[in-house]
């Protein structure tokens, strides 16, 4: 972490790791894949990608990185979670597997796969006042919804009122995939307003 140029990790156990790396590369932000505690210790921030939340959960337990992840999040590591990443950051999940665990960090209740099956997945644009400018292009793929935002700040809602983005301190979770939609502004905003200020 030289000056104010952070090294951003992408949790690379399963899911759309490559798409997040592509966004970070386009933004000119240094990044690396994170698969274990040693790699986690080297990064200034972490992206938890889309994927199957139950599978990422299992793999973090199998490969012994879960405890380090939970501890890092509790210490205030800046984290961005998209879709499965949001589920993994939620303190409470409905519609998950019986044995599904999360890392926690966001005082929210998230409903997994809340829109239905894949034929109900959709693209749209949404306003994110924190980011401003033109509406954000977004892909909702078997996406979750925040049913109770608890003590978090709501940063994105659909026109129908469903909460699809929340922030609590350094932790940001969104239901959708800017990284699949050629949308750079969410990552750019997160790095500028959350990650960079966290560097000392």
């Amino acid at each position, binding site marked *: 972490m030289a000056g104010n140029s952070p090294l951003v990790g992408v949790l690379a*156990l399963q899911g759309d790791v490559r798409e997040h790396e592509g966004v970070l590369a386009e933004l000119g932000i240094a990044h690396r894949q994170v698969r274990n505690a040693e790699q986690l210790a080297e990064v200034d921030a972490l992206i938890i990608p889309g994927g*199957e939340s139950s599978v990422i959960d299992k793999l973090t337990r199998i490969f012994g990185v879960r405890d380090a992840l939970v501890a890092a999040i509790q210490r205030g590591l800046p984290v961005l979670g998209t879709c499965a990443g949001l589920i993994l950051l939620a303190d409470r999940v409905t519609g998950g597997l019986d044995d599904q665990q999360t890392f926690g960090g966001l005082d929210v209740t998230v409903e997994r796969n809340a829109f239905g099956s894949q034929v109900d997945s959709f693209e749209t644009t949404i306003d994110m006042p924190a980011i401003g400018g033109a509406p954000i292009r977004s892909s909702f793929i078997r996406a979750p919804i925040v049913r109770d935002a608890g003590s978090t700040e709501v940063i994105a809602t659909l026109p129908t009122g469903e909460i699809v983005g929340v922030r609590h301190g350094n932790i940001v979770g969104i239901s959708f995939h800017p990284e*699949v939609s050629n949308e750079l502004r969410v990552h750019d905003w997160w790095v500028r307003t959350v990650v960079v200020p966290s560097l000392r």
Partner: protein
Amino acid sequence: MAENTVGTLRIKSGLADMLKGGVIMDVVTPEQARIAEDAGAVAVMALERVPADIRAQGGVARMSDPDLIDAIKREVKIPVMAKARIGHFVEAQVLEALEVDYIDESEVLSPADYVNHIDKSNFTVPFVCGATNLGEALRRITEGAAMIRSKGEAGTGDVSEATKHIRTIKSEIAALAAKNADELFVAAKELQAPYELVKWVSENGKLPVVLFVAGGVATPADAAMMMQLGADGVFVGSGVFKSGNPVERAKAIVKATAAYTDAKVIAEVSRGLGEAMVGINVNDLPAPHRLSERGW
């Protein structure tokens, strides 16, 4: 505020992106689907007979009973895929009505049309299709496939055809990327694929959709080898539930796929799995019985 748009190529290929690094398992009962989900499969393929049994029992293999697909959908939370026969667009309509998450237009079933594949762009549900080479992959993508899997030789437990197909597709992509712009017109003719798509692959050095491997994967080492050869993920058909210990083998293949460069992990998960599926050498199969030669 924009309307919501369903069934775009981005949404279709986006779900395949989310499956990357994962294992998709063939299941024939809700109980097997539960084992697959518990083991960490990213999706299940719901079907009535695994390829090894289709091969052994013969006859016409068709789309599964909707009751079976519904029962499997009720059992698990992960995506559920199902197979339609090559060219059987009404089976595909039925599977879409059942709200499966992905349709596999599959050579493992008996083809319904020996000339045409399904026009997949007409559907909201995404399709995965098999391919043995780059031209075949690009033709399927042109028809609307949002995910490609190499075919391998399903139901054999012999990984050699899967190896051949992923190596062929990868080396043909590399050869295309090395061509000059003025050579791409003839390349498109030879690949029997649209020029614009051929040009895109040449410029980007990859397929525009996710590439999984299927057909003959039976061990954790098989799965890791396919990943090291450049697969985005792995389909396991008969390999899990035709083995001696499906529960442990399913978990082991998931772990080996995720940690595919770590030989120590692959060694550890390969211990004590009991018998692998018995297997048939592809070379012992008479040509008419080779499923990978279905589709064109």
